[in-house]
Structure formats: C-alpha cells, structure tokens
C-alpha cells in the first residue's frame, strides 16, 4: 500500500555539516496491517512517520503510495492524498480549539475535493454515537477529557473513510487506563474495519498491539 524505497531525510546545518534524521531506509506497510514503529526519542521514528504520512518530503529515495510516486505529484495532489487516504492521530490530539467536537470531526470533509458518496454530517453523528461521544457534539475541545479528545481526533481521522490511520504516540498524553481504551479502539478498527494502522511509540506495551514492529535507531530502520 505504501512503500518507502531507500528514503533519506537530511538537513543542511551549514556548508559542511549535514544532519541525517533518517538514513537510507526502506519500509513497506501492507494493506490491513497493524504496524508499530518503535524507537527512543530522537531516533528518527517521527521523521519516518511524517514521511509515511506525506507531511514531509524525503531528500532522497522515493515514496510509492498505491503505485504512485510521490515525487511526481504536486502539493495539491499530495494534500488530497492526506485528505482521502490517510487519517492522522497525534499525541497532542491537535484539535482546533475554536471549533466544536462535531466541526472538528467534519473538518477534513470541508477540504475534500472528491464527491463523497455519503453525507459527512450524518456519518459524523453516527460515529459520535458509536464511539460514545453523544451529547458532546457542540462542546469545545477544552471542555472534554483527554481521552474524549483523542477519540474525537480518531473520529476526525475516520470521517473520510481512510485506508490508513497514522498515530503518533496516541497514548502519550493519556493515563494508562485511557491509553488502553484508545489502543483497543484502534485494534478494533484494524480488525473489524480492515483499516491499516501504523503507530509510533516508545512504549513497548503499546507497541505490542502491532502485529509487526519496525525498530528505528539512530536514524536507521533495524528490522
């Protein structure tokens, strides 16, 4: 589904020094997989995640998504891929504070360029019901708990019916009980809805949810 082929991410610090956030790495995530990307902080796992999520462009190598080379796509096409193909879940939840729960969930649908074969508002309300957020539709993010916020973020990731959810330390800001709930939820999505899940974490407990683990260390993918 998505393949990183000898991908490099480096930053020029000055004329002579180049910092390699990610050294030549090749990774493939297959459809319906649940993958955990694990590594200590500063290992390059977030860089890897940003590359998989098309938020960042590699300085070398190629990313191939659904058979299309990213280097051949323009910024708008890449934005559309992020919109339709990938759902993001972040450690900081990253909801927009001035929008309500419902509006946050609907946000990706406003940016959709393709015609949806469902009504996003109906879908959002259905998701809210299914994931136990009834009554919070009109609440603002700062008025609900962290666990609820992360669930809103997951629903926002689901609204466009993506093929893949990318979660960057999804439990990092939650207590362990809530964290487990969120992980169970992701597991369920993978098993029942066949959504590909890739999570980034430094906690081995969380990483265990993955059926495959990708280890990142010192900017290198170690199988």
């Amino acid at each position: 589904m998505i393949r990183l082929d000898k991908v490099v991410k480096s930053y020029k610090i000055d004329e002579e020094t180049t910092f390699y956030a990610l050294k030549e790495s090749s990774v493939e995530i297959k459809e319906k997989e649940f993958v955990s990307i694990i590594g200590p902080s500063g290992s390059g796992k977030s860089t890897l995640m940003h590359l998989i999520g098309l938020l960042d462009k590699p300085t070398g190598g190629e990313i191939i998504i659904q058979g299309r080379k990213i280097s051949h796509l323009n910024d708008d096409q890449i934005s559309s891929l992020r919109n339709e193909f990938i759902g993001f879940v972040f450690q900081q939840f990253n909801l927009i504070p001035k929008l309500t729960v419902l509006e946050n969930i609907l946000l990706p649908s406003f940016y959709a360029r393709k015609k949806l074969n469902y009504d996003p508002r109906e879908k959002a309300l259905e998701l809210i019901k299914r994931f136990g957020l009834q009554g919070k539709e009109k609440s603002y993010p700062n008025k609900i708990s962290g666990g609820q916020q992360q669930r809103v973020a997951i629903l926002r990731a689901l609204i466009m019916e993506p093929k893949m959810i990318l979660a960057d330390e999804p439990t990092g800001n939650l207590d362990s009980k809530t964290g487990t709930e969120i992980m169970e939820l992701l597991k369920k999505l993978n098993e029942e809805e066949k959504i590909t899940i890739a999570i980034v974490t430094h906690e081995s407990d969380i990483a265990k949810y993955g059926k495959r683990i990708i280890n990142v260390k010192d900017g290198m993918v170690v199988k």
Partner: protein
Amino acid sequence: MDYFLFIVKSALEDFRRSKMQTFLTSLGILIGVFAVVTLTAMGLGLKKYISDQFDALGTNTLFVAPGKLLQSGGFGASSLLGNRFDLKDLNRLKRVRSVTAITPLSSKSGTAKGPKKSEFVTIFFSSEAFFDISGFEIDKGRFLDKRDIDKRAKVLVAGPKIAEKLFGSISEALDKKVSIDNVSFTIIGVIKSKGGGGFGGPDHDSYFFGPYTTGFIFDPDKKFIRFAMKTDENINITTVKEEVKNEMLKRYKEDEFSIVEPTEILSVVNGIFGIMNIVLVAIASISLLVGGIGIMNIMYVTVSDKTKEVGIRRAIGARKNDILFQFIVEAVALSILGGALGLGLAYIGILIVQPFFPAYMDVTSVALALGVSTLIGVIFGVLPARKAANLEPVEAIRYE
C-alpha cells in the same frame, strides 16, 4: 457554499475571542472610511446645494457681471471688483428685445435695529423683476412692485430667518419698521424659505430685499454689482448673449464684463468640486493605507499564532489555497468590519451636521467605501496569507 460559510465562520470565531484587538485593528479603516464618506458627503451636499440654487433660476437666465468672471477664479471674485455698472447700462440693456425682464443688483451691509434685538444684515437692492428671476415665492405680504421702485419707497422684503430673528416671528415682522444704518424701512413682505445658507452658498433666508432706487441712499454713485435678466424662451440663449454683448461693447471693452449662464457657473462649480473630491479622497487614502498596514501587521501576528492550526489543517488535507483563502477572508472581514463601522459613524455624523450643512450621502460613496475596504483586506491580507499557506506542514504541526 458550505465550504465558504465554514471559512467565514472560522474567521469570525477569532474576532469573538479578541474583541478589543479586532476593534483596534479595524480602527484605521474605520477612520479612513469615515473620513472619505463624510468629506465626500459634504462636498456632494454643497455641490447639490449650489446646483439647486442655480436650478431655481431656470434655463433662460443670464447674468452680466464686471470683469472676466469665470476666468478670474470663480463667481465670488466679481464682487471684489466693486460696483461698476450704472443706470445708463440698465437702460441700454432694457432696450435688448430678447431680454424680457431685467434687474440691477447692488448690496449694502449694516446693522438692523429691530424691536427685539440688533443684527448685522445684508440688503440686496433690485427691481421688482428680481423675485421672478430668482424664483422666490412670497409667504406673507407682497413683493416689491414697480411703484416702490419709481417712488424710491423705503420698503423691504425680508427673508424668513432674519424676520424671525428681529421680530420673533414671521407674521410679527409684517408692516413693522426696521432701521438699518439709521434709515428707517417698512417691511412689506416675507419670502418663503429657500433653505441652505451656511458654508459658501448665499443665504437668501437671512437677506433683506429693497428697491434699487432706494439703494442709492447708501451709494451716491448709483452703481450696481451686476445685472440678472430673464430672456425670451423662444430665442436661443446664445443669440441673446450675443445681443447683450453687442450692447455692452458699445461702452465697455471685451474684458471689462462677462455674460454668464447659470449652467456655465455650474460647470465651473462642478470642476471645483471635482478637484476638491480628488484632494479629499487622496488625503483619506493615506488613512486607509495606514489602516491596511495595521491589518497586515495583525495578520502576520495571527499567522504566527495559528501556525499549529495551519499544520493541523494541512495534515488533514487542506491545500495551500485553502489556507490562503482562509487568511484572506479573515483580513477582508477585519477590513469590512472597519469599513462598515466607519460608514455607520459617517451616517450618524451626517445626520448631526445636516441641520447646519447640506451634507448628502449617496449610494456611490457607500459602495465605494465597502469596495475599497474589501480591496484593502485583500491587498494587505495576501502577504500574511501567503506566508501561512507556504508553511511546511511538518514544521507547522511541530510548532508550539
């Protein structure tokens, strides 16, 4: 449409969160629009007022004034040349057959002593034809007639404003005596209000009108400042002008007098106001420019405040243009807010000055004010918005 509403809502939500900041930012535009609209309203009002004054004269009216009127800096300049014409000229012009009515005009300013109080007044001395030529209507009593002229009667027709000032009310003034510079006059009539006055325009409501023959009491030289005449409707005004000119040329050189139609004066007035408007708009534009820079400044602050939000929006699929549009809409909303407030304030201001000044607001200035503020929002919003749109998604989302 949904998308547009969503963007506008996103922009307005921000304003609700920081009312004071929003207001201060739009203040520059507010002042600019207020200035443009108020000043043009006053200019327009004045122009309309003056036009109306001349419109009352009708199309078949001519003035003969000393000097080169329209070339020597406007209408008012002729009075500086003083009283030039005399009875000989009057009699000559009376002989022009296409002139149906003629009045000489001279004026005298002095202190009028009424029973209530004293006022500094101006009397216009004319013939009985003046009232018809000027389009006056009588309210109480009567106009001057030929007998008043022949008998050099010490009678006056009063404007309603001065009648009220000196005697308390219009009906009180009728048949009363008033002493102006120690000459006693009887008031035989009061005209209907012609309105206006104030800045620039002649305030007929505050004048007295008397027989020109009586005016000679104050002027032993028996001179006039100008002639006003009505011409035969069936004869082309240019022909009449030529005839009047030929008559005048018998005594004067060509550059010693002018023959003017109200429409010519009007075109001069229009010219002056055209220039005035350009100057006013230029001055007010500076304020709009400053306001625009204020908006640009606050938009740069907003962009850096919202870096993270931009990152989030980009991550979930917003394109560069979506972000660009969002910030431009926000800048335009700020600017239109200022424009609308400025317009509202100008409207109130115009209502306040209207009793003293013929201010007049038209649709064009409203449309212009709102159009210009939208344009300013776009122009000064585009750079900050581009900055936001060009943020790298990954950098933006990491921003704290």
